[in-house]
């Protein structure tokens, strides 16, 4: 799931300074689950902005949509959006962009920093687990992502800097490749650590458009319209 963190209030205030009527738009999916931008957080931010002497005089209201990364859900705002002179999105960067595209005449600002793809450890506690490298190697690494959890993002390891359980960069930084070694050994498939994963083609980080197999024709038909 996408994990985000609320931006510091002074930064948010600097975005909305000078606007008179602002709608805080929550997103009811990823950012709701990671407690950064659901309806509760949207309302909290609305109240904070209302309370702040710096933004005194302006009006803040909130509304939370199902997902901001789907046009269909954004269309629910079509009529209401025109009443505001700025939108403050609490969705991840993807949601903010689609919102900004849908309401391109109104300034749209982000209220959260999109941090990572991660897992929920407990209430309010998340860990990054994937950087969307596009060439998943988890099959060879016992289900532990070396790109994310190895401090150097090595596809093959461990490197000479391992202090067995920790990484040379910091005693608190666990060595991901040591964890991979341990788990492979425990599953009796340690020989897999010898298989060399080719370097990732990081050029794939250019804007990616994903079309699922079987949907190519549908996509091109839509594009032609």
């Amino acid at each position: 799931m996408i994990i985000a963190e609320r931006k510091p209030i002074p930064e948010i205030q600097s975005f909305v300074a000078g606007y008179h009527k602002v709608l805080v738009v929550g997103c009811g999916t990823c950012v709701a689950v990671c407690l950064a931008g659901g309806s509760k957080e949207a309302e909290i931010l609305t109240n904070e902005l209302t309370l702040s002497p710096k933004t005194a005089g302006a009006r803040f209201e909130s509304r939370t949509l199902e997902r901001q990364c789907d046009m269909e859900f954004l269309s629910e705002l079509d009529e209401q959006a025109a009443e505001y002179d700025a939108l403050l999105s609490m969705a991840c960067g993807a949601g903010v962009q689609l919102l900004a595209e849908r309401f391109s005449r109104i300034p749209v600002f982000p209220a959260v920093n999109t941090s990572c793809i991660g897992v929920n450890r407990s209430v309010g506690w998340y860990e990054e687990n994937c950087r969307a490298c596009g060439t998943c190697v988890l099959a060879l690494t016992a289900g532990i992502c070396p790109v994310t959890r190895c401090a150097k993002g090595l596809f093959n390891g461990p490197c000479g800097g391992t202090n067995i359980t920790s990484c040379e960069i910091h005693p608190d930084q666990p060595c991901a490749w040591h964890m991979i070694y341990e788990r492979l050994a425990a599953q009796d498939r340690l020989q897999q650590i010898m298989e060399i994963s080719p370097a990732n083609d990081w050029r794939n980080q250019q804007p990616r458009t994903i079309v699922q197999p079987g949907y190519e024709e549908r996509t091109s038909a839509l594009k032609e319209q």
Partner: protein
Amino acid sequence: MTQHATQQTEFTVTTKVLVIGAGLSGLASAEKIAEQGYQVLVLDQGARDDAECCYDPEMNTVLQDLRNKAQQHSSISLKTGARLKQLTGFSGNFQASLELDTGTEQLDIGAVVLATGYRCLPLFEHYNLRPGKTVLSIGDLEKLLTDETGKAQIKNGSGASIAFLSGFGDEGNPVATERVLKSAMAVQELEQCKAYVLAGNVKVGADGMERLFTRARNQGVTCIKPEGPPEAAIRDGVLNISFKDPTLRQDVNLAPDCIVLEESIAPDMENERLREVLRIDADDQGFLQTGNVHRLPVGTNREGIFASGTSAAVKTPEQAIRDAADVALQVREFLGNGTIQVSGSKAVVDEGRCVICLTCYRCCPHGAIAWEAKKAVISPIACQGCGICAAECPMDAIQLLDYTDEAMHSAIQEQVGTAEQPSILAFCCQNSAFEAAQTAHKMGLELPDRLRLIEVPCAGKIDVEDILRSFTSGAGAVLVLACHEGNCQSERGSTYASWRIREIQKRLKALGFDDKRLVFANLASNMPREFATITQDLASRISH
């Protein structure tokens, strides 16, 4: 707040009870529960025969007796080599998954009784001694005392002096004291034998313990409380204990024939796993009950799950057996005849808003929440109405019937006062601060004119929006008054409240808003004077 007329709803529950642990308290509880007409299944997970009662040979007879009775009872079924693997469903209607010798078995049960035992850990290392023929743990000695061969070994022909060391390695408890005294008396009874008890922390805080202590001394057991821990060593094969005697005011050397060392008592190995499977709280040692004063003697934080005997705390065998009556009573109260009435203000999920983030499931202190069909579901039987889930839900998808967001909102609006006379809005937990406030009023203590109270079921119900909204609506100051930690009826409600308030104070500060206008305090119901002081202080502070 709008109090709904107390509505009663009827629910059907399963009248089968699962008892975990086939030791003294487990079997005694099973018998008493079966007497009430319920079906009981006893698993010998955790406590088996010896853990609870090895030190008292008499108790082995009691245990054997209980076991025979359980085997003969038509409503009790005893499973050996069985453990509880998983528990799902809700209080009153749990689904238990059992691991048996013969495979797994699914079972519907209404209530669970925990009756695990404890482990005795010898403390040789603490005394720098190695176990041997002349250095025993109390458990070793107890075993020797059970038969004539063992006793002969203790006597060692012409008679022996035995020194017991206790209460130096472990904090001590009545059970440890009882074990030492009983063994010392048994040794003293042996022909030509002499028992010395060197004790640090003697705990006599259990029934009959003081009497036992006097009896031991009258019988000739020498009891000494040395100043500081004694030093025990073996020199050239000879035992020596040196210590400072507070009565003689000098160093004394004792050369006994045998040293008997204390054992510390640790929770059953199964406790940790059971606590996870059952989602219940444990104390800091791992016993399955916290010291919460609001809990019934055998209650846990979950409705329908009870902790009996040594699963809950270190108890003497007599105490462990006595819990059975309490357990049976509680089970009866809970399951009744299979149809139970539930009333009171409960939390309800708005399915349309729930995004199944699991926050409520993880926060509910009473294990009242699970999920079904991709939505959170709250059991009205298990819900205690604290409102913690409602305050934490990131989608405002939970409403507590008597304290809906809307009701809180209008209560705030009504109480915030005017621009000239902004209120001091005090959110008071009904279990503590609200009562303190009432008493303060009755006692005629001076309270600020501008003080307005909003009663909440638990401080954990007050959410961030309530507080911010109080300020945006014009309140002059906000007080959040919670129970003392460890004394909160909803276990963590007061802790959650304190965390939230600290976070809001930080946020207010970042906004350039006077964060001193938000105050958090812990208060008990018998603290009306403190209530008055806190409110007066705040009033004088914000008037400047």
